[in-house]
């Protein structure tokens, strides 16, 4: 059947199971095609690596060297002073205790936000996948469509709600905001995962008399560990990199690292210390970069989860 259709399309083609040479055709390593291919990829890689290189190199130079040299040249004398200064002495406004304050603020914001947002979203996703009630899909649709609404549209109403609750400007308030805006993507992630699990599993547990929470904690949670890791990667980098919510919903003493970094680098007073700025920038980027390099493929899976619908 298969063969005959091919034969009618291409009458002069040989039979498909042609007993030809086995294995890959040997290819010259330095063919023109390969030079083009790897050349193009290499050039692109250079473009992507350049800023990281410039950051590192600049942060290891002293200011006199920066003033005379060019930004791409490696440091003649390596100094770690800019790093120390960025961490412990750089000034934002009146505070001169460096980025360390922002770092700890970010940690204080990130850890509870990640836990709360993932806890809520995983239970939501589980309810949507296995315990659907009337109207659940409607709420879910609003949630997903809401993910595309620009934040600027919803910021002020949230400010008012938080103010009414007495949470505006507090850490709790910011945690609530992160949980709200992380919900669409995380709920989608968990719902799709739980939907993909075999239904028999859920039914068997039901027959055995397990209830909503029992099935969640004893069956779904242990099975969903990989997706929890993906969600964590997503949230850790997302919340660490957030700027807008940090500016709007916290007071200056609670500013996260990104906000403080921006204030340090873009402050108009004082002499610009580019090496300190770059060290501070690297320090701020270090956490998500660390997560990225450690998590590898899971990171890709996390960002693809937002894009590829299940």
């Amino acid at each position, binding site marked *: 059947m298969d063969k005959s259709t091919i034969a009618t399309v291409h009458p002069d083609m040989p039979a498909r199971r042609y007993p030809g040479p086995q294995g890959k055709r040997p290819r010259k390593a330095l063919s023109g095609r390969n030079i083009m291919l*790897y050349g*193009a*990829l290499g050039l*692109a890689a250079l473009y*992507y690596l350049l*800023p*990281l290189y*410039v950051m590192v190199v*600049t942060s290891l130079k002293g200011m006199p060297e920066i*003033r005379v040299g*060019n*930004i791409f040249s490696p440091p003649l004398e390596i100094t770690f002073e800019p790093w120390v200064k960025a961490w412990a002495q750089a000034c934002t406004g009146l505070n001169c205790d460096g980025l360390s304050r922002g770092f700890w603020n970010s940690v204080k914001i990130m850890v509870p936000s990640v836990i709360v947002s993932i806890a*809520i979203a995983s239970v*939501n996703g589980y*309810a949507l996948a296995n*315990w659907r*009630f009337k109207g659940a899909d409607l*709420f*879910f649709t609003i*949630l997903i*469509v*809401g993910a*595309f609404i*620009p934040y*600027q*549209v*919803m*910021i*002020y*109403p*949230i400010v008012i709600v938080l103010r009414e609750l007495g949470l505006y400007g507090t850490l709790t308030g910011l945690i609530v905001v992160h949980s*709200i805006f992380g*919900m669409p993507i995380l*709920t989608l992630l968990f719902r799709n995962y739980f939907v993909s699990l075999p239904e028999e599993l859920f039914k068997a547990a039901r027959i055995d008399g397990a209830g*909503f*929470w029992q099935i969640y904690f004893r069956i779904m949670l242990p099975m969903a560990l990989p997706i929890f890791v993906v969600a964590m990667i997503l949230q850790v*980098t997302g919340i660490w*990199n*957030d*700027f*807008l919510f940090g500016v*709007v919903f916290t007071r200056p003493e609670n500013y996260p690292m*990104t906000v403080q*970094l*921006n204030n340090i*680098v*873009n402050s108009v007073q004082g002499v610009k210390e580019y090496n300190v*700025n770059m060290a501070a*920038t690297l320090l*701020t*980027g270090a956490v998500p*970069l660390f997560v*990225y*390099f450690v998590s*590898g493929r899971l*990171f*890709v899976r996390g*960002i*693809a989860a937002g894009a*590829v619908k299940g």
Partner: protein
Amino acid sequence: MTDIPVTSPATKARRPNRLFRNLNSKVASIPMIVTSVVIFLGGTLWTVVYSFTSSKLLPRLNFVGIDQYERLWATPRWLVSIQNLATYGILSLIFSLVIGFVLAALMDQKIRFENTFRTIFLYPFALSFIVTGLVWQWILNPEFGVQSVVRSLGWTSFTFDPLYNEDIVIYGILIAALWQGTGLVMCLMLAGLRGIDEDIWKAARVDGIPMWRTYLFIIIPMMRPVFVTTLVIIASGIVRIYDLVVAQTSGGPGIASDVPAKYVYDYMFFAQNLGQGFAASTMMLLAVAIVIVPWAYLEFGGRKRG
């Protein structure tokens, strides 16, 4: 629209306590329900309603019709930011799709070190817009950055100072944005390419179609859903652009690199002109709706029927 009124009585027998069926699930979904209804739906409606008022320091319900919108579209700063968004948006869409696809196609040639290349192309995506903006601010610094390096090589009249030149500042931001975001597009495209049946390639090769034509006329049309998804992701990110501009130029020089999101923020939290901020953010919402509604209709409306 159906003309025939539905007169048949409800056939389902209603249980007395429907609200309490599946109660745990409903309780567990309260955060989702509150978020979607109160924040996403309610908040959006609230902003739209208050954009028709003359709220200044505090939101007040004294309606003034479309005054705020008229004022908005007469404000040069808003026009600049819309223009910037349009330029940035169109170029960013084109370049990220083209660069992302070309990189993905190169990566799909059964190359060695694929993981290394992917790691390199994607790492900027892990960094925040603030970090991205500050790095490129430094690289594009005319005194020390690319311009001075090229000049020191002998080409002394070379000028490339996008962040200090009103006319091209938006391209400086575009360069940084592309550096940060194309890795993601590449990843999505690569996933799309990997999803294409190997037999298509074999058939094209048998028919003697050159590779570039196979990509252009067979593979890309087949990847339509991937392109659409990517487009929606990029587009909704474009409308939101804020942090990058704040970090890289703070909207400057002057107001030359202003964008709508920054306009909204400044009017809401600094100029204490809430009405303007609400009107501007409603326009942002409209911009997103133009992209999202047709997509959502095709995507979800189609699936329900299918």
